[in-house]
Structures are given as structure tokens and as C-alpha cells.
């Protein structure tokens, strides 16, 4: 594999990343409350994952040149968590931060689920769960054919991995030795109607992915000190094995009354709840 891609500049310290994650969560709360709909709790759980990728010096990308052929690709396969991605994209300069508030409004490219035809920097249109890993595998195969250093990062939801297509892709990737494909499972313990352990048990996750032929790391998905090195290791493994990170997270992370209740799936916060949430996040 070629190695001509430039390393991203401006990687933040863990302290600065923690601040950035606080800012991303504030955007998520503001956006979804203003929209009156959306999935803030699903967006909170992957906040550190996305923050580490976009601000921790992991993702090789250029907001000024979103079609750079050798860029890394990021796919939010759990498309309902796209507010996290929009917030990170705005903060890295894909579009103005003040556009975030147009989420889900008619005419805005910030649709309820990501739409590749509407917003430069979105790499896949998702929202029907289970499809992002196959798309990522296709991109990984294309990068290999082109001898490109591009890496493909795919965030999967905890409930999303109920979908059979995830496991079709998980079977196929090792066959092709796509070491440039990194699946990150946002293992947030809950899905729409209950805890994942009750709806459809998918543990032991690490053993499952390993037995399929992936190199697996099992880490705390909210702790940058654990997450950053895991992402770095996966991105640089280059050992011909697809990489999987089981990121142990919590649905609703950061806002206590959302963390305690999976019933917040797909529910925006009311104005009153928004103010409580921002206070908990340290924004009051």
C-alpha cells in the first residue's frame, strides 16, 4: 500500500479533546431541540469516537478539499447519530457552525440522516441500518486497487449489528485482507425499545469479530486516553487484517437523565431539558 497521504495537522491534546467533546454535545443538544426531533442520545454515545477521529489527528481529510482522492473515508453507518458528525464537520470547517441550527429543516443539506448528494464531506447515505460496513468494504477494496493509502472508518451502532448484512461484510473483509477498513462498534448498550442484551444479545462481541478474522480492541469509548491509542493502532496496523474497535459507551452519555433511560431514543430534549443538559455539560 502506498504511503503518500499527509498526516493531519493540529491534533488536540486529551484536555482539549475533552473540551471539544463538550462543545460537540452542546451542538447536538441545541440542534436537535431546535429541530424538535432527532436522536440526541444516540449522538452522545459516539461523541468521543467522532471527536477523536476529527480532532485527535486520526482522520486524514481536508475540509477545503472534500473530494481529495487519497482522503480517509468516514461512514456514520448508524445514520441517526449524524448530529455528532455534522457538529464535528462544522467545527473542522466543512460548513459554517451557524448552519448547524438548520438541522432537519426544509432546504438544509443537514438532513435527518446523512445524504451524500446534499453535503460535501458526507461519504455515504445511511439511515437504513446495516449497510455502512459493506460500503466501507467496497471503498477499502477500491483503495487497494488504486494503491491508495486511504483508510475507511465505519461507526456501527450497538443495535445496528443485529442486521445480517453487517455479518456478511464481516465475513467478507478478512478474505480480501482489507487492513485499511476499521469498524468501530459504538457499544452503547441500548437500542430503540430496550437494552441490547434484552432485545437481541450480541455479546461476546469481541470474540465474535475476532472469530470472523478481525483484529479486535475492546476499549472504553468515552476515555480519550484509551480510545486515541486504539484508533492510532487500528489505523496504522497495516497487517492485512481488518480492524475492529469495540468502543464501550453509554447511550445518552453526558446528560444524566438521558443516560438512565433508553426511552430517550429518537426524542429531542425539551427547552427545559435542554437547559438542564447544558448545565450538566458545563455550559451554563
Amino acid at each position, binding site marked *: 500500500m502506498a504511503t503518500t497521504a499527509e498526516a493531519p495537522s493540529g491534533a488536540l491534546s486529551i484536555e482539549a479533546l475533552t473540551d471539544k467533546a463538550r462543545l460537540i454535545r452542546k451542538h447536538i443538544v441545541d440542534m436537535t431541540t431546535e429541530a424538535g426531533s432527532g436522536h440526541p442520545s444516540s449522538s452522545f454515545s459516539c461523541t468521543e469516537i467522532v471527536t477523536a477521529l476529527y480532532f485527535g489527528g486520526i482522520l486524514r481529510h481536508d475540509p477545503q478539499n472534500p473530494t481529495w482522492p487519497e482522503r480517509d473515508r468516514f461512514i456514520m453507518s448508524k445514520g441517526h447519530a449524524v448530529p455528532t458528525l455534522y457538529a464535528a464537520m462544522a467545527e473542522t470547517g466543512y460548513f459554517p457552525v451557524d448552519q448547524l441550527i438548520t438541522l432537519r429543516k426544509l432546504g438544509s443539506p443537514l438532513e435527518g440522516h446523512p445524504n451524500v448528494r446534499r453535503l460535501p464531506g458526507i461519504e455515504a447515505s445511511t439511515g437504513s441500518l446495516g*449497510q455502512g460496513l459493506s460500503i466501507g468494504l*467496497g471503498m477499502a477494496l477500491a483503495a487497494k486497487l488504486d494503491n491508495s493509502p486511504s483508510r475507511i472508518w465505519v461507526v456501527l451502532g450497538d443495535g445496528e449489528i443485529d442486521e445480517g*448484512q453487517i455479518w456478511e461484510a464481516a465475513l467478507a473483509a478478512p478474505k480480501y485482507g482489507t487492513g485499511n477498513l476499521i469498524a468501530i462498534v459504538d457499544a452503547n448498550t441500548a437500542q430503540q425499545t430496550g437494552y441490547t442484551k434484552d432485545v437481541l444479545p450480541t455479546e461476546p462481541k469481541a470474540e465474535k469479530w475476532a472469530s470472523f478474522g478481525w483484529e479486535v480492541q475492546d476499549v472504553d469509548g468515552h476515555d480519550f486516553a484509551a480510545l486515541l491509542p486504539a484508533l492510532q493502532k487500528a489505523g496504522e496496523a497495516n497487517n492485512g487484517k481488518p480492524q475492529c474497535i469495540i468502543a464501550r459507551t453509554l447511550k445518552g452519555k453526558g446528560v444524566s437523565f438521558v443516560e438512565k433511560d433508553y426511552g430517550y431514543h429518537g426524542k429531542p430534549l425539551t427547552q427545559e431539558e435542554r437547559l438542564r443538559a447544558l448545565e450538566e455539560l458545563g455550559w451554563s
Partner: protein
Amino acid sequence: MELGKTIGLTSGKATRVAFGEALRDLGAEDPSIVVVDADLNNSTRTDIFAKAHPDRFFNVGIAESNMVGVAAGLAASGKQAWCASFATFVVSNAYDQLRMSVAFPKWDVKVVGSHSGISIGEDGPSQMGIEDVSLACSLPEFVVVVPCDEYSCRAAVRAIHALKGPAYLRTGRPNAPVIYQDGAEWTLGKANQLRDGSDLTIITNGLMVAAALEAAAALEKDGASVRVLDVHTVKPLDVEAITKAARETGKVVVVEEHLAHGGLGSAVSMAIAANHPVPMRFVNLGDQFAESGSPAALLEKYGMNYQNVVRAARELL
């Protein structure tokens, strides 16, 4: 297969074989072409491409959803990705992937469904693509093409290769009667008038083109002058040629190897209803599954041989 025998048509290659050969040839010209199959390569005939271009061929196993997704990802990264399976497996099994991972982003993925219709014969209904045209037409901005013989299939492969965006190509299992000679004019989106006539028009595509031509010849013996249109491109539809035929002949029979709902008959009906309503009849599988049997026996039993077309035409004449 008996199709075309009464008018002396000769048997040519199956459209699936013509597809495989055309794609192999295009692969030599265009290095961006990649092919993904779900372990039916020697049935869909992508194996012909694979043999010539092994580095650009991916057999992802019996997993159609993943096949379509992988093709989508390859296309997202600048490849022209072709994927193939039996028509019913790629379209019905992987429909949400065609919708979300191909049509919605409008990526350059070409979807090929082989073993279409009931003429696959003995393998029976589970293997027969009888709803694929309807489903493919329901994918926004998909181009949908149903060639009738080896020449038109090669032309169709080249035509959809030249497009940037999603397309569905329907191919068949049996050897197909030769309708077109090399060098014949064949343009995507343009109906081909295979025979002129003033009393009635038969609109058809795929394997049924041969039955339509046989029916037209039989009707001519009764003194009826019958036009035959090969509407190989179901989407976008050649509304002009269809409207012209309705206006000039006043009666239309639509013949297809497909369920009644959502295929060529539906598309043609909308065009005629909107532009020049005339009496119509329909020859197709209706609203049912077929069964195992020889292709000729099935076409006869399920009402899709030329005698059925003649009968439908006589109702109007």
C-alpha cells in the same frame, strides 16, 4: 426452445452470455470497471469477465446484500461497479441495498439480473425473476433495460456503461432467437420498430419479442397489418414512439415475460392513458407464480407464447 420457429428465426446466444462477453471486452477498454458477484458467476456469466480481469473481480459469497453494498462502495471511490445475480436474488433479496446504497446516492452501479422470467424452466418459481422490472422501475432514477437477443444485449451493456449512474439490465437463461443483425441501430431509450403496421401495435421486449413477431406474421395471414415495437428500455420510456403507435394504429397489445403489475404493461399504459388513450390488451404472467417445467411448456401453459398474443390481438381487431 420453440420461440421464433414459425418465422424462421435462428437461435443465438443467451443474453447472459452476451452480457458476460460484452463486459469482458469493455473491461479491457476501461480499467475502472469492477465486478462483484454472489457466487453465481458461472450462471450470471460474470465468470467471462473474471477470467480476463481477475484482479477486478470479487466473489463475496452467497450474500447479495453485501454484494450490492460492496459494489456501491467501489462506485463511491470512482469505479464503475457491476454486480450480478439471478434477477430475483439481486433485486428482491437486496432491494433495500439497491434503494439506499445505490439509487439514493446515485452511484455508478450497474445491476444485472440473469435468469429472468419463467423461461428458466425446470428450476421452478423460487429461481424465476418475475417482478424484477417492476421493482427496478421503482428505484428513483434507475435506467431499466430488457434486451431481447445477443446483439441488443451487447449494445445495452455498452450503452449503460457510457452512462454515469445506476442501471438495471435484465438477462435471460435460454438461448435467445436472433432478432438483430450486427450493425443494427439500437439506442438506449429509443424503441425499435421491428415491423410496420397500421391496424394494431404489439409492444414488447426481452424474449417475448420473438413471440410478438410470430404473432404479427400469423395475424398478417388474416389480413391484419401489425406493428411491432421493441421497447427494450422500460425507463426512461420512449413515450413518443408509443404515443405515435397508439395514434396511428389505434390498438395496442403489451407482451412481457413478467407479472402483470409494474412492468412494461404498466409503463406503456401510463404513457398511452396520458397521451392518446386507445383499447389495450396485456399478455403476461398475470398475478401468480409459475412452476417447474420445460421453458416452452411453461410459456404455453402460462399464456406467453405467440398464440396467446394472436388471441389478445384478435380481441381488439
